[in-house]
């Protein structure tokens, strides 16, 4: 998911694998995306859900709720959208395709909608993972629908 568009801004955040940091990640990404005047409220809302899912998964599944682990959130603001990467060094995923199927969840208390939401709410989703090697989820989201003129001037 290497895009050649001009990079307007770029942030990396390292945080502990704590549930409270899901909200922190969300606020940071929303604040960064808001630097682009062209971003729609709608796109911002969807982006927040997608980030929330990826970070929650790293905490719950990747680190199995151990709070003292580190996860990394990278966000690159491009001319027309935002590129997000959420990385954990947790248990990893053996069968990525299966894990990404809607309503597949290893946790009986969960609905298995995390990946489905990331898929629906972003324009591109890539998962890199191997058992014992952690997981990286990359997402790209356009700021607005097919409007060339609304390029970001942040």
């Amino acid at each position, binding site marked *: 998911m290497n895009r050649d568009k001009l990079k307007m801004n770029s942030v990396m955040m390292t945080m502990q694998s704590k*549930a409270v940091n*899901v909200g922190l990640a969300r606020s940071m990404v929303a604040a960064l995306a808001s630097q682009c005047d062209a971003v729609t409220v709608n796109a911002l809302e969807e982006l927040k859900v997608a980030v929330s899912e990826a970070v*929650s998964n790293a905490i719950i599944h990747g680190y199995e709720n151990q709070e003292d682990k580190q996860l990394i959130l990278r966000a690159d603001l491009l001319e027309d959208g935002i590129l997000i990467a959420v990385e954990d060094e947790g248990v990893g995923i053996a069968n990525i395709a299966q894990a990404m199927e809607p309503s597949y969840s290893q946790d009986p*208390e969960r609905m298995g909608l995390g990946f489905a939401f990331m898929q629906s709410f972003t324009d591109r989703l890539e998962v890199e993972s191997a058992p014992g090697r952690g997981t990286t989820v990359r997402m790209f989201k356009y700021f607005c629908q097919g409007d060339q003129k609304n390029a970001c001037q942040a």
Partner: protein
Amino acid sequence: MALKLECRNDALLVWVNGDFDLVSAAEFRQKVDTALEDQRPRHLIVNMSRMTFMDSSGLGVLLGRLKLIQNRKGRMFLTGVRPEVLKVLNLSGIIPLLQITKTEDEAMALLRKGAVK
């Protein structure tokens, strides 16, 4: 997030304030399940007019409570749902399983009339 709970007639009313995510979902589950156990209301009405955000963790907890309510042959209502939260609900397939109303009074009225699916 801040939660408020209240029992009214046969229904448990819950107000959810702020973001409904991994943190608040845990609190919601614990407090609502305790109230469902202790006070044995049949129905559940969740006022979402001040819920500013919901992800699949929030949704999952709602679905879990829906199952408990269905087990006791009760009804579940979501009231005052904001557009951004509705979008998440729409994707989940949960909507046909419960009732969405504007206010909790509307929900209470429907319960009194027995006019719920």
